Each structure stands twice: as structure tokens, then as C-alpha cells.
């Protein structure tokens, strides 16, 4: 009973905060345009649904590719003892630091150098670039799932059968929630992505929404069309839930239980990971370096000077944003602790999903229309509006990452503690959080990276006079030379890497302090 009350209190506070700060603005905007929807309904034709199907198919290909590649890379990086894996894990994240648009530019330049400019390259290029951008996300999600597998399960299996069998019959089923999360998240990210398809000239559903928004200034139709995206995403989540409800959940490798790490007898794993890094990270960086080098060393100094005022602000905002969305994610995910029906948690999940699936521009306009009132100016004209945007946009991802681990926590652990009278908060501190720590860290790290590079909503919301790194690069690059643009991107990369290393350092410091305390 105490558990229920304590959980309900924290759940209610966070649920209603998210609802009021981010959900309500969206409802307000939808409400304002609802009168025009009858007219908009007439504009939905077969062509539009065909476009939606095509976008769905492209997103499905991207999410499948990202997840398959993610499984392979995560296996080598999280389950084997390949050399330099800590460094390789960080390098792998680099495509997430850069605006997808800039990566698309770098890749198209590379295609041109290679003499590839036919029309089919647009589709291949778009799918390839988006896959490369989203593979790190898949690796993080699947890696987190792999880290949670109890070594005893694999070891028992290995005593009876071959490793191949263990992989197919034990490891893959155990990471099924992570695989499905990867598929769903990458699908939603891909179907909402605008800049890369637009750059490669591939017409998808988001380019249609953008056209209504920017060429016709038809906000109501753009909002109405974006509702179709939300419907697809909710259908996807529903299907996922139905599927996962039947999936078996096994106990996970927790604190005090050793994680199984396989010794690689050959360098195959290292070569595969290195090959991927060369393709997804090395080649675009070489292109960017080659272009920046044409401007000499002075161009790097100029880029640094142009961007330096935005460094601290961007990192602080991303850090605060990541903290908030991780908190929301933890509370949303804790509702799934144990078994049973979780109606309110499902509502929370649904709300976070809708916020995530809404195109950035629509979310931006909703927040403007809601917060741009004299009484709320203290929020609208401050950086708080950006953090609210970040939370709305990415809390779903944090919740999803943490929820997978929550669902794997054995009910017996919680019940044992409950029987001996351990209160709710102590159970969280001593049992649940230590188990969830890898997922919470992953959610925070992913959140930080996504907030640091967020452009679509932030460009609509950033207070006048505020300097934010991705926006500054984007607004400067329009008429800057290729070498200055490339140098700026490299500076952003360096600063983002420093930020990520700082987070790893902080995590290491906290972990070592905790270990000392337990010793």
C-alpha cells in the first residue's frame, strides 16, 4: 500500500507537470485549429496516403537496417573483450552529434567525388545516411539490453549446447524488448525526419507537412497531417505492447551478478566494428577535414571564435534537458515495475509518444502559441522554453530505454524487500536504481546528445539574443564557404565529444565513490 501511495505521488507530480508544460500546449494548438479540420479532411486523398505508405516503408527499411547492424556492433562492443572497446563506443556515437543535414551534405559531397550522381543514389543515399545516424541509437539500446543478461543463463546454456544455439535461443529472446525498442524508436525518428530526405530530394510525408507549413502557411492542415503520423506511431506502440505482453521476461544481470563477456579468439569483432566506424564516422570526417583544410588553420580559429559564445550555453541547456527528461523517463518507467495492468502508465506513455512523434516545427508552434502570453513571458523569453521543448521531444526515448530494464527486474526481488518491511524509497535506492543504473545512464547520455544537436524545435523557440551551437552553425552555414562550414562542424564535434567525455568522467567518478562507500 505504501509503495502504491509513494509511487502515485511522484508519478502524479511528473505526469501532471509534463501534461501542463508540454501536453496542454499541444492540445491548445490542436483545439485552435479543429474548426478547420473539416475542410482539411477533404484534402486527404489517395496520393497523400500513398506518400504516407512510402514514408513508412522507407522508415521500416532504415529501422530494420539500424537494428540488425546495431545487434552486430552491440554484441562485439558489449559482450566480447575486443580491444579499445570503451573508446570505440564513444567514437560510434559521433554521427549522433552532428545535425543530420550536415552529415547529408558531407555524404553527398563524397558521392560526387566518387562520381555517383544518378537518381537512385538519392534513395540509397537518404536511407544510408539515416541508417548511419541511427545505428548508434540502436547500439546503445541493444547494448544496454545485452549488459543486463544474467551470465548464469548463458553459462547454463553453453554447458548443454553450442554458442550459436545460445545466441538464437537465449540471448536474442532476452534482448527482444531492446530490439523492438530500437525498431520502434528508429522508425519514429526516420518517419519524422525532414532535413535529410529534403536534401536528397526524396519526397516523403514530412516534406509534405513542411510544404503546407512553409510554402502555404497552412498551419491547420500541417497540424492535421501530423496527426496521421501520430496515429501511425500509436498503432506501432500498441502492436509493440501486444507483442511484448506475450514475450517472456527473464531475470537480468544485476549488481553482484557477473555479466558474461566472451573472449574473442580472432580479431574479427574488432575488424567489423572498425570497418563500420570507418564508413560511418571516418569517411564523413575525412570529407569535412579535406574541405576545412582548404581554408588553412585560420579557418579553424575563425570557426572557434564564431561559436565560442555558444559552447557553455549549449552544454548547460543539453545537460539540464537531459536531467529533466531522464527524471521523466524514470518516473514513467517505474510504473511498469512488477506485473499487472498499468492504465495510467499507459496514458503517460501515450502522451510521451505523441509529443515525440509530432514534427518538431508543430511542437515549436504549439509551445509558442501557448507560452507567448504576457503572464507566461517569464518562461517564453527565457531558456526554460528550450528545456521544455527538449523534454517534450525526447522524454519518450528516456522512458523507453529505462522501461526495458524495469520490465526485466524480477518481481521476487521487490517482493522480498517488501516482506521484510523495506520502504518504497529505500527499495528504489537499494534495489531498483542500482539495477537500472546502466539504463538511466544510457537514457541520460542519449538525451544529452539529442538535446545538444536539436534544431527543429529549438530554431522556433530560442529566445532572441541566445546563442546555441547547432543553430549558430545552421544559420551561419547558409552563405559561409564550404571550408568554414566544415570547420564549424568539426569544432561542434570536438565540443560535443568533450561534453560526452565529461559525462563519462562524471559517471565514473560517481561510480567509484559508490564503490568506495560499499567497500
Amino acid at each position, binding site marked *: 500500500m505504501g509503495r502504491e501511495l509513494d509511487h502515485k505521488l511522484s508519478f502524479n507530480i511528473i505526469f501532471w507537470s509534463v501534461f501542463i508544460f508540454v501536453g496542454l500546449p499541444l492540445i491548445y494548438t490542436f483545439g485552435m485549429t479543429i474548426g478547420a479540420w473539416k475542410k482539411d479532411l477533404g484534402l486527404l486523398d489517395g496520393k497523400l496516403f500513398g506518400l504516407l505508405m512510402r514514408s513508412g516503408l522507407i522508415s521500416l527499411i532504415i529501422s530494420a537496417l539500424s537494428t540488425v547492424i546495431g545487434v552486430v556492433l552491440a554484441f562485439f562492443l558489449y559482450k566480447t573483450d575486443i580491444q579499445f572497446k570503451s573508446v570505440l563506443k564513444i567514437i560510434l556515437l559521433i554521427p549522433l552529434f552532428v545535425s543530420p*543535414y550536415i552529415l547529408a551534405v558531407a555524404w553527398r*559531397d563524397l558521392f*560526387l567525388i566518387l562520381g555517383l*550522381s544518378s537518381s537512385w543514389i538519392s534513395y540509397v543515399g537518404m536511407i544510408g545516411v539515416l541508417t548511419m545516424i541511427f545505428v548508434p541509437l540502436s547500439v546503445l539500446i541493444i547494448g544496454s539490453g545485452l549488459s543486463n543478461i544474467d551470465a548464469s543463463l548463458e553459462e547454463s546454456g553453453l554447458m548443454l549446447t553450442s554458442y550459436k544455439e545460445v545466441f538464437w535461443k537465449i540471448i536474442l529472446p532476452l534482448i527482444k524488448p531492446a530490439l523492438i525498442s530500437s525498431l520502434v524508436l528508429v522508425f519514429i525518428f526516420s518517419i519524422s525526419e525532414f532535413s535529410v530526405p*529534403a*536534401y536528397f*530530394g526524396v*519526397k516523403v510525408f514530412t516534406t509534405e507537412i*513542411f*510544404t503546407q*507549413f*512553409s*510554402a*502555404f*502557411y497552412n*498551419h491547420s492542415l500541417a497540424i492535421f497531417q501530423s496527426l496521421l503520423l501520430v496515429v501511425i506511431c500509436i498503432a506501432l506502440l500498441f502492436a509493440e505492447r501486444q507483442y511484448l505482453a506475450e514475450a517472456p521476461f527473464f531475470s537480468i544481470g544485476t549488481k553482484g551478478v557477473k555479466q558474461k563477456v566472451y573472449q574473442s579468439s580472432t580479431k574479427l569483432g574488432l575488424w567489423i566494428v572498425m570497418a563500420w566506424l570507418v564508413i560511418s564516422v571516418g569517411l564523413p570526417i575525412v570529407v569535412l577535414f579535406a574541405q576545412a583544410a582548404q581554408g588553412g588553420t585560420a579557418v579553424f580559429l575563425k570557426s572557434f571564435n564564431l561559436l565560442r559564445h555558444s559552447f557553455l550555453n549549449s552544454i*548547460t541547456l543539453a545537460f*539540464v534537458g537531459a*536531467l*529533466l527528461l531522464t527524471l521523466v523517463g524514470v518516473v514513467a518507467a517505474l510504473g511498469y515495475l512488477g506485473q499487472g495492468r498499468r492504465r495510467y502508465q499507459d496514458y503517460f506513455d501515450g502522451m510521451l509518444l505523441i509529443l515525440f512523434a509530432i514534427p518538431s*516545427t508543430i511542437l*515549436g*508552434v504549439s509551445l*509558442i*502559441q501557448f507560452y*507567448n*502570453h*504576457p503572464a507566461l*513571458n*517569464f518562461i*517564453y*523569453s*527565457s*531558456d*526554460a522554453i528550450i*528545456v521544455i521543448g527538449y523534454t517534450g521531444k525526447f522524454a519518450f526515448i528516456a522512458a523507453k530505454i529505462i522501461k526495458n530494464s524495469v520490465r526485466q527486474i524480477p518481481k521476487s526481488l521487490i517482493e522480498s524487500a517488501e516482506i521484510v518491511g523495506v520502504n518504497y524509497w529505500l527499495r528504489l535506492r537499494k534495489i531498483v536504481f542500482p539495477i537500472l543504473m546502466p539504463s538511466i545512464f544510457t537514457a541520460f547520455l542519449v538525451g544529452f546528445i539529442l538535446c545538444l544537436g536539436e534544431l527543429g524545435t529549438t*530554431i*522556433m523557440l*530560442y*529566445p*532572441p*539574443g541566445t546563442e546555441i551551437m547547432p*543553430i*549558430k552553425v*545552421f*544559420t*551561419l*552555414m*547558409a*552563405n*559561409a*564557404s*564550404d571550408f568554414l562550414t566544415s570547420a564549424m562542424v568539426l569544432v561542434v564535434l570536438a565540443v560535443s565529444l568533450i561534453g560526452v567525455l565529461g559525462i563519462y568522467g562524471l559517471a565514473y567518478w560517481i561510480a567509484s565513490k559508490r564503490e568506495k562507500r560499499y567497500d
Partner: protein
Amino acid sequence: MKHISILWSVVLLMLLSSCGKTKNEVVIYTSVDQVFSEPILKDFEQETGIKVKAVYDTEETKSTGVLNRLLAEKNNPQADVFWSGDPIRTIVLKQRGVTASYHSALAQDISPIFKDSEGHWTGFSARARVLIYNKNLLTDDDVPKSIFDLGNEKYKGKVAIANPLFGTTTFQFAALFSSLGYERAKLFLSSLKKNKVVIATSNGDVKKRVVKGEIACGLTDTDDAHEAVQEGANVGVVFLDQVGLGSLIMPNTVNLIYRAPNEANGKKLIDYLLSSKTEAKLAKSCAQMPLHKNVLIPKDVPSLDAIVPMQINYEETANKLQEIQNYLKSWVEN
């Protein structure tokens, strides 16, 4: 728990610390590329002591940010001034009640063609639509002289334009519909389509494709073409239709926002932008052509007097644009 409380207190403090406002300030939203607009705004700040808070946008996002933001903020405006790279966007804002009237004394010698008679926008420093071509791919004799040449079989697959649903390309097409009439303009667009014209994402993308030799020539703005020349690219630039239709001239425009929170400072900034000094700076940084007389400009910047302009009314062209948007959309998609 104590650590968590301290952490959240710090977060809250950081969020609230940015809530304060200084009064001697002006808020400007601009769709003019930051590399060119920011130095001008910094100079204004230094010379007047008025703090400039800017929101920048870029053609790459089709200026979605600032324009949609101004429309969404209409009931409680945050901006005082909007500086646009072309008149079309400003006219859309005027039609939706976002702009206010202000007749600046500094714009008295600017031709009435480049000003709104009601004072809702004033033009300055103009760009023009030009053809940029790669000298390795086209000889001087092969270079098109008229926009209509682009529909000739000779240039099949060799021409790029930016997406005509956005930016200055929309403006150019609307001007063509305005000048030629619906049927002739449609014929021209059909000839482009038949000739497999490449639709790039932006004018910058057109420039880039021509510079890299992916495409022989393309329509773009003078500032993009000037930048390519400055970078040493082997490209040439041509003002099309100098016998006949003329080239489209696109002034920057500036306007006061209706119910601007810092109206007095907004007017000072508008005056500053409309000065000959600003036009001279824009001529130097991005080859924009001054609308004031007797402004000193670099040798490589063309004078408006030397160009045959397309005879259009900007307000009518903006209206025409709204009429043809659906046609342009289907033209792009089919």
C-alpha cells in the same frame, strides 16, 4: 537525497536566471543570412548602445523559423523589427496584420517601387536573380542569354533551380506569371520540366552543384553567385534577359512589427538599416546593390543603373504567388 535537492536547486536557479530583461534593447528577427546581418547589427549596437537581441534564420530552412514564429507570436509580439531578404515574406506578414506602418526619413530618396505606400515595409540593398554557370562545362557562346533559353533541348539535364515552392525562386516564378500571364508562364515551366531541370534544395545548393560541375548552370541570387566567385570557383555570372523581360530585382525589406514592445528602438534600428552606410557595408560583404544614390560600392558589385530590371509590382507579385502555389506544387511533384 540532499545532493539531489542541491542539484535541482541549481537547475531551477539556472532556469530562472535568464528571466530578467534589460530595457534599452531592440529585438529583431531576420531571414537574412547571419554572416551578413550579424556584423551590421553589432555595429548598430556599438554605435547606439542599444542592445540588439536577434533571431536568425536561413534560406536552408526556407525561413520557416522566423516567419512562422512571427505569425504565431502575432497576439503578443516579441520582435520589434523584421529584416527580410525579399519583399514577399514581408507582404505575407502585412496581409496577416503582423506589420505596422513606419515611414523612415532615411528612405525618402529610395524609389517608390521599392517601398510600401502605407509604410508597412521599406526596401534597401537589392539582390538580383542571375544565372551562374560552370566555365568548364559551358563556353561563353553557349551561355544562355534569356531565361527562356533554359527550356531549349540544348540544355537538357544541364540546368538547376531551387525548389520553386520556397524562397526567391518562388518570387521569380511569381514575377514571371505576373509579367507573362498564366498561359505563357505555364508553357515556360513545361519546357523546363521537359528539359529535366534539376530541382535543388536551395539557391546555395544550386551554386554548389554548379561550382562542383555536377550541373552546367542554374538560377540563383547575386549574393550566392558573388560568393562562388570570391571563393575562386571557375564560374561565370549572367544577368538574363537584358534585352526584353529584364532581371528580377529583390530588395531587402525592413518593417516595424505591430505592437512592438520596443517601438522607439525598433524605429532607430530601421533608420540604421535604411542608411547609405548600411548599404555600403552590404555591397562590400555580399555584393548587394544599393538603392540610395551615390553609395560607394566595390568595383565587382554591379550598379542597379546598369541592369535592365523586370517591371513588376511587388504587392501584386505576392498576390500572384498565392494564386499559383498549388500549380507550382503539382509542377514540382509531377
